[in-house]
């Protein structure tokens, strides 16, 4: 019982199964504790399936958009390069987080004589400036000054 078979050629598979066993046992304990808790409180075991995963009125656009834009950002970095992809996606993130609804007001603001008086137009403009300034600054500082490898 107090021995483990040790052979150099298979030594890479000694420890992972031990950890998997420990995780299996811990998972079983968690299940048993959950069953006991449910019995004591009289709640159904699979009650958690009905419970809420996200907070009430969760922001679908911002949450899903964050993951989706990240995926696209990685893909586009390979195609158009780091600086261009960063400008595009930092802008997209800015617009997403500041509120996509603002984009609807842009055509009307552009047609008006003083677009800068429109808050949505100003916000999108700030997004654009931030995207260009910060992407260029980080590209210059990290890539050119510090010579850190960039995509």
């Amino acid at each position, binding site marked *: 019982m107090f021995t*483990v078979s040790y052979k150099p050629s298979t030594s890479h598979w000694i420890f*992972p199964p031990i950890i998997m066993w420990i995780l299996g046992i811990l998972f079983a304990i*968690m299940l048993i*504790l959950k069953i006991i808790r449910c019995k004591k409180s009289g709640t159904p075991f699979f009650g958690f399936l009905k419970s809420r995963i996200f907070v009430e009125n969760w922001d679908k656009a911002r949450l899903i958009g964050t993951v989706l834009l990240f995926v696209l950002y990685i893909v586009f970095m390979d195609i158009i390069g780091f600086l261009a992809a960063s400008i595009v996606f930092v802008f997209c993130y800015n617009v997403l987080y500041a509120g996509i609804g603002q984009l609807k007001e842009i055509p009307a603001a552009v047609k008006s004589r003083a677009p800068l008086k429109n808050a949505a137009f100003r916000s999108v403009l700030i997004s654009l400036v931030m995207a260009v300034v910060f992407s260029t600054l980080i590209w210059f500082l990290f890539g050119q000054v510090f010579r850190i490898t*960039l995509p």
Partner: protein
Amino acid sequence: MFDFGVTQLIMTFTGVVVGVIFGSLPGMTATMAIAVFLPLTYAYDLTTSLYLLLGLYVGGISGGLIPAILVNIPGTPSSICTGFDGHPMAKRGEGARALRIGITASLIGGFVSLAALWLFTPPLARLAIKFSAIEKFLIILFALSVIAALSKGNMVTGVFAGFLGVLVALIGQFADNNKVRMVPRFLMVELRNGFSLLPVLIGLFAIVQILQEAETGMKEEHIDADLSNATRKFSFRDLKGQGVNLIRSAITGTFTGTLPGVGGSAASLLSYSQAKNFSKHPEKFGTGCVDGLVASEAANNGLTGGALIPLLSLGIPGDSTTAVLVGAFMLQGIQVGPLFITNNIGIWQTILFGLLIANIVMFIVMFYPIKYIAKVINLPKHRIYPVIILLCVVGSYSANNGNMFDVWATLLFGVLGYIFFKIKLPAVPFLIGFILGRDLEKYFVDSIKGSGGSLINFFTRPMAWVIWVLIFVSIGWAIYDDRREKRRARMNGQSQKGGS
């Protein structure tokens, strides 16, 4: 000796200022600050980089007091009790006074923890040098059992998360026989050496935070940070009679910091409740009492040096922020552990000096211009997070000198960390398990190699017995504390039902 000049001073200053900004924005932490700024350290040698990282660490922990006092929202978990008394003070027009008391207490807490770091790390490391692979294995097991002991009411979940981290760390090639395990065929090239630390860190501590904020709609709340109308000004005499409270809280914070996976919130809560228990006027706590504010702030800065003690003597990170520092050392090819001080005396001295300078710079940067610094809490997060995402991508890509797979891994661990948060699986034990996993395996295999696979070896050395006792005490305490916590939660639930 260590290098110190204008560059290092600028690095410390930059680190502190950026750290204070991260610390003062609720949701953004010192851990996130260090994880995001780690790539900058490629450009410098480790000693110069350490000034930046320690500045970020001290600034990040200290900045949390600003929103805690002004709006009663802790900027970092370690400022959880700061607002209990700081906010009532701000409400009666003593915001600047409360902030300056908190900053001074933070400075003293930082100094006490620095002294503890200087005094206790070398002897602990000297003891650890005598450890064989068996004791090294057991000490990591002990660190994992401490995580269990401190996962209040969630003991099994905490341990499960820790061992899950260990399993993920084992993915990839085993150094002894160069064979790869647990890697799908199509990722054989990318995952040959397993997951890198930096993408895991950035994913778990930066991307998760952004996803959580995105879920709630990234709501911005304009906070009135006007401190011009003060009813009472700060004077160093405000700290008269706080000597014992300051030292006790700083020591409590330092001690809490040495325990793996505990975190700053425990340091703040523990010293606050101690200050209340020892006070002649416990009824004044929560009404704007200087004692409570001092206790919380001295403790959370006390944590900084404390968390570095197990890291630099045993190679075990004390909290998530020092876990990120492991990443900085790894990137520079330096192994933290018992031999760290002996082999890297210059870096050891830099850490001590850097921590001292970071605390002084933090005081200067925060104490005098506090009225202006306080306005930081109104920086719009929806403009900061896109830049953080950009830094996350740069950081993870450059972790292995340019590898797009690491950026995918960042996203993967970001989503995984978000799922952990949803199913209430703690991320810090997972991270500590991940960092220690490879060493745990190495020491286990080294221990059984010489004995032909016998496990009796783990019980034959006197030093091992001591560690086994510590492990059993820690597990015994974990079970006792877990039951006590659950009983307390049940009783609270019943009294609330009765009340309603």
